[in-house]
């Protein structure tokens, strides 16, 4: 009987202590520092974050830069080491675990051009033929060349053009790109 009590007690105790150590304790240490700043996050950016999560970009792109001297993140121009306040308290967290593509923690500074992002999202191979990033064509609409004058559409290379049609980003693409451009270590944190 004694042994079984020890067994049950041990099972719960080992779990509870580590649970406290790895979830509650970090919360007590980190929350204070990140909850205080008042993040001004426009709706477009939170919406873009939602689409980033929906399309699973995180399974190929990390969003955490390691410090100079640990890996070559800094030398590759991915930015300084990430800190907790970089994430604007947008949930779910997007730290990621995989770098099939480059880290995106500072992509807004590296690649501030909206048109570049539209093209990369519509057809990554229009920019880099070796990319294995999926196309996200459902964030775009294909309309007749004459529709919506004044809106030229994406400047696609010959191979990806559709005769008589042009490709326009939808609101979802606008939001996603606004989010990507907001990923700039200079302006993250308190605005």
């Amino acid at each position, binding site marked *: 009987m004694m042994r*079984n009590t020890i*067994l*049950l007690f*041990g*099972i*719960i105790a*080992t*779990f509870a202590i*580590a*649970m406290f*150590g*790895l*979830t509650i*304790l*970090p*919360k007590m*240490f*980190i*929350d204070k520092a*990140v909850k205080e700043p008042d993040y001004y996050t426009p709706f477009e950016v939170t919406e873009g974050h939602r689409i980033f999560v*929906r*399309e*699973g970009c*995180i*399974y*190929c792109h*990390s969003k*955490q830069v*390691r410090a100079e001297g640990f*890996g*070559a993140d800094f030398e*590759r121009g991915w930015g300084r*080491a*990430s800190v*907790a306040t*970089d*994430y604007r*308290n*947008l*949930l*779910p*967290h997007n*730290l990621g*675990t*995989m*770098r*099939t*593509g480059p880290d995106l923690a500072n992509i807004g500074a590296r690649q501030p051009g909206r048109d570049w992002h539209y093209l990369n999202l519509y057809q*990554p*191979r229009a920019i*880099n033929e*070796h*990319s*294995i*990033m*999926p*196309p*996200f*064509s*459902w964030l775009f609409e294909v309309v007749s060349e004459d529709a919506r004058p004044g809106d030229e559409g994406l400047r696609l290379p010959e191979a990806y053009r559709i005769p008589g049609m042009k490709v326009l980003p939808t609101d979802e693409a606008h939001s996603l790109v606004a989010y990507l451009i907001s990923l700039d270590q200079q302006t993250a944190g308190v605005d």
Partner: protein
Amino acid sequence: MDPGSNQPSYSVSDLDRKARFVVLFLIFSGVFWLLFGTLLALFASLKMHLPDWLGTAGWLTFGRVRPLHLNTMVYGWASLTGAGVSLWMLSRLLKAPIMLRGYIVLAGVVWNIALLLGSIQILAGFSRGIEWLEFPVATMVAIVLCVIIISVSVLLMLINRRVKQLYVSVWYLIAAFLWFPLLGLVSSLPIFDTPTVQAGMNWWYAHNALGLWFTPVGLAAAYYFIPKVLGRPIYSYGLSLLGFWGLALFYNWNGFHHLIGGPVPTWFVTISISASVMMVIPVVVVAVNHHMTVVGSFRAVVNSPTLRFVVFAAMSYTFVSLQGAAQALRSFNEVIHFTHFVVAHAHIGMYAFVTMMLFGACYYIIPRVTMREWHSKGLIKWHFWLTAIGIIIYAGALQGIGVFQGFAMNDPEVPFTDTVTMTIPYLVARSVSGFLMTAGHLIFAWLMFRMVYRPGEQPASPLVWNKIREEFAS
């Protein structure tokens, strides 16, 4: 090898007859999700080197198919089948019938519906976006509640047991059925509301889902089937004890080694690295214990379908755990973090260890609860070799190239694109290995199907509906 008992009031065949319906239901549900998850795996793998294949279908994009593959394999295949296997082992080891059988069947139905709903949610774009926890919170909580019903049944069996001593497998299983619901509930709490804290919870959860749920179920099976099939006792009680408590003490603390170099206080990471290295103790202890039990009987390993899978799985456990301890070291982690190496590592854990262990367990359990023989010995061999060679190619290809990918990524002279192109042939090899494993799964599913469907033969159990009524009545 069952711990001795003076008053066996249930015969083994009594226990198996009572276990039949609920165990078959859970295991067959798992096999369904195995096939579904395998299909998703093929999609994800092919899409990595054929990015424009089905490229216009949003619901089939890589970023949705890949997490769904993980979730169906983890909460569908491995958890449902693992629960069925665990209940059967407990019934045998405690010499008590499975309790609350009707309620478990009901929970199994709800669980399957939750999986279906969660699958639609992820494909439709409503993922929670946290790795290993992509099912929306409500769906996840539904699954956890189903597990809790099984946990209650496990505790009732413990109270109703007809044996005095608890065998080592029982310790692991009781722990698993207490740990997993707790993990699931804590991970669903809304208190992790800042990004880096949530990341910490994320990896505490994900690592423990493997370490505190699948690992104890897998080790319980190894401790059960190896001595059972060989007909000799486990080598050392002392080592069993050390292995169990070592796992309970150290595995719990491993999670933060997924965040090495990340934006969290370093000392949390350092704690996890130390705990990961300490895991060497229980792992080696368990390996020695199993090896010393098998030594001298390697013929039996070749001849018994169960042992072939179980021993392969137990060896994989040792390998993957030692590898995991090494991966937690900062110098090694600097290279392989963020590469395909880690993806392969996870598959050695969930496939070469957990999945192969469950296959082995099924080959032992199903004939006993259906009272039928396997349809074809040859097909079992095919199943083994296709899956074993498949996972070896998978791990070899991705871990091989993962190291080079890591070195290339840490060399700023190498353009990033080269770190992508160098992996392509190995991603193709992964797809090939995927087809081998798929073939193995189809064979397994066919063999399983033939165990319950034999036209012309008198059914061994009454029709499903009557059976459910009967389960509730008992």
